[in-house]
């Protein structure tokens, strides 16, 4: 779908309205925006909604930490990670845990476009590249 510049601009304004003063994204506001746009049907409303969806997704990704490890992490470990990451990215960061055996060992944390890679797989890859 071709999304015009106007639609992108409109969706950006709508997204801004979903933040509160402290910069927190409110799910209730997002829901209300979608509902209102659907009812009022302004010009290009489908394009606006698609663009809005993308912006919300990117925004949520920025506020979601994806934590991959080979085995399930202990409760204590999870707690430490939560405290550390929330200190860095704010209280509203949600943490999602995944099991990924291809890491071989260690852990990989991704928040938005930032990645901390402490997995054995990444180290092997780096070693391989430095030898090549």
């Amino acid at each position: 779908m071709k999304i015009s510049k106007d639609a992108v601009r409109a969706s950006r304004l709508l997204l801004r309205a979903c933040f509160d003063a402290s910069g927190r994204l409110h799910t209730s506001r997002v829901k209300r925006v979608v509902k209102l746009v659907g009812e009022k049907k302004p010009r290009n409303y489908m394009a606006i909604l698609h663009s809005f969806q993308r912006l919300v997704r990117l925004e949520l990704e920025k506020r979601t930490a994806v934590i991959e490890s080979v085995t399930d992490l202990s409760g204590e470990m999870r707690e430490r990670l939560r405290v550390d990451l929330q200190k860095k990215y704010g209280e509203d960061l949600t943490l999602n845990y995944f099991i990924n055996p291809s890491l071989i060992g260690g852990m990989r944390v991704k928040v938005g476009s930032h990645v901390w890679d402490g997995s054995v797989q990444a180290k092997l890859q780096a070693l391989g590249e430095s030898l090549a």
Partner: protein
Amino acid sequence: MSSILQEIETEIAGLKTSVTKSNVGVVREIGDGVAKVEGLSDAMLNEMIEFPGGLFGLALNLEETEVGCVLLGSGENIKAGDEVKTTGRLLSVPVGKGLLGRVVNTLGEPLDGKGPVKADQFYPVEKLAPGIITRKSVSVPVQTGIMSIDAMIPIGRGQRELIIGDRATGKTTIAIDTIISQAKQNKAAEQGKLSGHKPIYCIYVSIGQKQSSVARTIKILEDAGAMEYTVIVNASASDSAVSQYLAPYAGCSIGEWFMDQGQDALIVFDDLSKQAVAYRQVSLVLKRPSGREAYPGDVFYLHSRLLERAARVNENYGGGSMTALPIVETQAGDVSAYIPTNVISITDGQIFLETDLFYQGIRPAISVGLSVSRVGSAAQTKAIKKVSGTTKLDLAQFRELQAFAQFGSDLDAATKQKLDRGARIVELFKQQQYQPKSLPIMVSSLYAMQKGYFDNVPVDRIRECQGKLEEYLTTRKEALMDKLGNEKTLDNVESDLKTALEDFKASWK
């Protein structure tokens, strides 16, 4: 043995604790050699972005939620959803003496099958031009070995002289001749001749040309023994538009290394019209707004920042220089088109080649009236200055009178003499391709012309006579020629040269 074990141990210990931090993104859309990448929030402008499979892209458009990357290779295996990451490096090329004699692409990778390139260093492709404080005015000549240029449109080291003309008017040939001439002088200097000669290393950047033309150029340079002083950067017509757009900058960095070492370099961009077209293509697929002739708004900056990098720096900064010979192709001799006017306004003069002259057999087909060198005689050796001071004027007057003479038959003696002299100078300046002349030979020929030694030679035999004279001087008067080459002034050799010319004239018939 134990030391290697220890090394491995420390390596492993380092790996244990190290966590790599990187910035990643996801390919959202790919096409026309451009990938739109979501994420990459830390990407810098012009940063190299690593794609899967060892492919690199260049971040050219930084937008709020995504980055537009042009791929520096074929993106056949890249698909939407692939993860890419920043490298923290700007696009750079290998530089150093190890590149001499090599043919490389825009990334500095070898294309000649002669093994890996030995680099001293890596230079970023986009560099800031030397500032005002570091510069010095141009005063040392680049001897092109093309008599008409050295006599009338002298080029100095650090100058930017545009070669402009329609297709197939001999633009490339002038650049190649200049490179061959440098090689000849460098060789002569190595053999102890040409005292005080500082070698010039050449970089030939070919942009958007047919592979066959490039191969021909390389062959010519090899046959002339010029490759050992030359680096060829090739982004041919079949390479991506990004490679073609970046090739001149890569070549420039290679040349700048020589300048930074206090040495002299000469760079040829063949040609910037094709580079502008490649840049236009890149801009259009990146959806940047387009302006006149559909070129993006910053096409002037594209060339100005490139040519500003040619400079002569002063002794405090090493005293090196880089001379640039950009080439621009015109359509039907129209110098007022967009790209030609841009480049003319940036350079320090132009050599204008005309189709009409070319087909009249006047080769190199240099239009005397439209060609200038704004640095002019500041960058001319004393000897040449002395023997060619009025040549340009003589020729210009000749062309004017020639138009008149077609109508009237009764001409006064002075006019007739001017016409005769002009016709002979035109003949004298005709020159075979790939045979640049040495300084003493040029000076002697011009001296003979100035002093009237050619006046009683029929116009259609001038070139024959000139050829014989050159042969006579190189084989029989070697010492005199060497002396002239060393001293670069006529003061101490004029009488000897006179005798030599008289001897020659007596024997010639």
